[in-house]
């Protein structure tokens, strides 16, 4: 069991109840003890040390904290960790093994889909969710699917190319 959120736990008065939750994170069952107000994004980053999930705006705008929740992309800064009890969460770390790249990651590498990289994990998770549902999206469909994710570097051009590259690769066409 991972004890969670050391910095908050220290100032948690004894009468504040915590809740034990079990979440499948990247295929692995994790049992954690959380204070109800802990956000899923913080649990992933500070609790489980999965720092691939970034927190950007912290107000449900930017999508940097996007993770898959039972297969659907959600903003993990806008969900409580307790709400994930009994559910499956996939972060960017879960896209591929340690020495492998998922085709979406390969696409971002090949097509220069990132500059500073801050939005990239959220972009890749949103892209994976799109391709799981629609293996052959048009450029327009890619743009709409990524419209909940902000990038301040690239102008989106290469991000869209990266996703189309990955789609092709996943279809076995390259």
């Amino acid at each position, binding site marked *: 069991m991972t004890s969670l959120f050391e910095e908050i736990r220290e100032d948690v008065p004894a009468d504040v109840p915590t809740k034990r939750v079990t979440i499948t994170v990247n295929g692995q069952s994790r049992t954690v003890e959380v204070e*109800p107000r802990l956000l899923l994004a*913080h649990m992933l980053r500070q609790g489980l040390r999965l720092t691939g999930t970034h927190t950007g705006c*912290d107000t449900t705008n930017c999508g940097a904290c996007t993770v898959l929740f039972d297969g659907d*992309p959600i903003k993990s800064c806008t969900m*409580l960790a307790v*709400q994930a009890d009994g559910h499956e969460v996939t972060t960017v770390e879960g896209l591929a093994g340690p020495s492998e790249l998922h085709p979406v990651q390969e696409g971002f590498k090949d097509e220069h889909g990132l500059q500073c990289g801050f939005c990239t994990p959220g972009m890749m998770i*949103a892209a994976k969710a799109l391709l799981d549902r629609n293996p052959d999206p048009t450029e327009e469909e890619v743009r709409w699917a990524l419209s*909940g994710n902000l990038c301040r570097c690239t102008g989106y051009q290469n991000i869209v190319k990266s996703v189309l590259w990955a789609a092709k690769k996943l279809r076995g066409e390259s």
Partner: protein
Amino acid sequence: MYPPRFRYEAPRSIEEAIAALQAGGGEAKVLAGGQSLVPLLKLRFASPDVLVDINGLPGLNYHKVDPDGTLRIGALCRHVDLERSTILASRVPTMAAAAPLVADPIVRNRGTLVGSLCHADPQGDWAAVVTALGGSIVAQGPNGRRTIPVAQFVTGPFQNTLADDEIAIEAVIPAAKGTVAGGYLKLERRVGDFATAAAAVALEFSGGVVSRAGIALTGVGGATIDATEAAAALVGKPLTIETISGASELAAAAARPKTDHRGTAAYKKHIVRTFVERILTRVSAGGQGVGGTGIAERAA
């Protein structure tokens, strides 16, 4: 940012949820999609003692049509369910047009229509759509259920008429009596921003004339605006250049926008006039459902 401390309850039945609200004594909030409530908690605009998470309640994630044509949308029906719905386009085209324009695609995976109505943000899309359609909210409390027309449900910005121990369990859209058409057009600076202005139009026709009309406006006043005079001007008449232009002017006159960083008041009124006119014109040309952001539009 962290939300303030609260007690968390995850009831397994509506009765348990109502009991949890009662125990909260006026300081409990219902958590459904959380896409407005969680940011409010983090920004300390809300600090309830208890959060009653209804996501574990069974049987609330539906949208379905009764045999008499009434559409019912459960409290856990997400925006994405409405966006991908196969029953909305032909039955409630105004709603089908609005669904892909709510928030952004990731938020749509969690947020709910009923939650959005309860949140009562004057810039919420669904409030205008449901107002134009003459819809209601069904609330359940310790003494049973009651139905509240959405126009009476919202009393002001972020205020509704739910009692402390009531849960909004579904939204209801009455059955249409004639042929339906309508649309929702929204101007936004980018996906996910609040509407600069938006207009919902819901029409029913019988024998070539408008038999029922609803026009409601988003983001151009302290609450969703029900443009009743604009809608009334269409009833009993066919859509012509004259009736369309008359209703559009009345809709713009009903708007009470404020000048802000999204545009001047005059500009927002102009957008309202343009959008109402555009939806009505498309409908008169045979379009059933008209939706779009004002930039990327489509007509079906």
